[in-house]
């Protein structure tokens, strides 16, 4: 057999081997796809869809990259602080960030594009907002409702769980995302021409309105609130705070919130329903008293709030 004949025999074998080998590679990428699925990050589509020709850059909120989520979150937070001025109490804001960023690290999504940051709003209303990507705003009224660090940790963990579940992004209308993904898909260059930039900004403005009005006016669905309560219980447990503090906090809210009020009462389900949902998750454990060291530092930061 001459060399050429040998090759004509070997060639089909090599191609067969390659055919077997390449699907292996695709299957292997399942590892990363699982990762993307959990993070709800930039990965579109399920495992094995690699063969599908991808023209559209995305379809739903899950296709919003962490970087774009970051810009959405900044604008949403900017809108909230324009309505409720930030508290100038640096000492408290530092404490709030130490507590909040520690809790966020124990969540299922510790890494967002710009990280988690917390700020107290100078308002007596009882409210808290989670802007996409990790910007969490809590009113002074809400902080003053907390009797313990564990209770404040419960409030912050609930907000972190909203970010973990990308709940804010879910409120963006699909039609806006379709428009945005079409522009992104057709325009390859990093910097956009004036027409694209103006169209993208229009979609961006609309998206900010969708998220902001959900946070401030309409509220999330009951399912998403339950998901956030469940996430909060997990975070509290992992870090070592008392998950029973969430029930204490909800009970306190039930007492303080006026039905038909313009704050938390408007955007959240009845605290009683939430207590009924949370109690089985924590095994009906009653709230434990905080160690004196923890209680002392909490009371110290609340002075002159």
């Amino acid at each position: 057999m001459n060399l050429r004949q040998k090759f004509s025999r070997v060639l089909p074998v090599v191609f067969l081997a390659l055919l077997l080998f390449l699907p292996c590679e695709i299957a292997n990428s399942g590892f990363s796809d699982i990762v993307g699925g959990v993070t709800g990050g930039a990965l579109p589509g399920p495992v094995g869809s690699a063969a599908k020709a991808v023209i559209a850059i995305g379809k739903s909120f899950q296709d919003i990259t962490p970087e774009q989520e970051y810009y959405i979150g900044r604008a949403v937070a900017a809108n909230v602080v324009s309505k409720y001025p930030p508290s100038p109490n640096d000492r408290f804001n530092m404490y709030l960030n130490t507590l909040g960023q520690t809790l966020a690290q124990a969540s299922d999504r510790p890494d967002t594009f710009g990280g988690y940051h917390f700020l107290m709003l100078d308002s007596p209303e009882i409210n808290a907002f989670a802007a996409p990507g990790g910007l969490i705003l809590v009113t002074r009224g809400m902080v003053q409702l907390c009797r313990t660090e564990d209770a404040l940790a419960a409030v912050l963990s609930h907000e972190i769980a909203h970010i973990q579940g990308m709940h804010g992004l879910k409120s963006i209308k699909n039609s806006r995302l379709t428009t945005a993904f079409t522009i992104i898909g057709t325009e390859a260059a990093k910097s956009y021409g004036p027409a694209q930039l103006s169209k993208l900004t229009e979609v961006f403005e609309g998206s900010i309105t969708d998220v902001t009005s959900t946070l401030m006016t309409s509220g999330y669905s009951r399912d998403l609130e339950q998901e956030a309560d469940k996430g909060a219980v997990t975070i509290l447990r992992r870090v070592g705070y008392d998950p029973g503090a969430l029930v204490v906090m909800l009970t306190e809210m039930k007492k303080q919130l006026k039905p038909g009020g313009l704050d938390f009462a408007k955007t959240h389900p009845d605290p009683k329903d939430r207590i009924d949902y949370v109690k089985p998750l924590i095994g009906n454990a009653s709230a434990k008293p905080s160690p004196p060291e923890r209680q002392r530092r909490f009371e110290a930061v609340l002075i002159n709030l």
Partner: protein
Amino acid sequence: MALTRIVLVLAFVLALAAATWSDSGMMSVQVKEAQLRSTPSFLGSVVGPVSYGERVETVQKQGDWIDVKSSKNLRGWIHQSALTSKQVVLSAGGQAKSAANDKEVALAGKGFNADVEAQYRKNNGRIDFASVDRMETVRISGDQMISFLDEGKVRPSEGGSK
């Protein structure tokens, strides 16, 4: 000669397959900055940082944590929320290859970006971005977190995010 051509084509196909194969263990950092830790836990001591777009080689996985080697030869655990299987292209005025590649490639700065925010700010002058900028400057280190938990007698029940 035809044989040379076949050999060349074959070599090319094999090289391509090899490249794809070795790439399957590669992931990219999809956040501005993340930390590699010595153990798969949020309490693990920090080995060093990795930054946006950096490629890391995956070694093993445990729960939500991935053991990786960074391009700067650092080895440590990173939470999966910091990574994507796409290649993040930090385009210094560069171009995305084509839309068909978007499954594998994410072009940094695409879509809602700093330019869009600037335009939005121009259209909505009174919105308070300054407070948001200030808010983002507050960063708590891993050591600060550990002492905060210690001082408050907060005892993590698990090794962190699973």
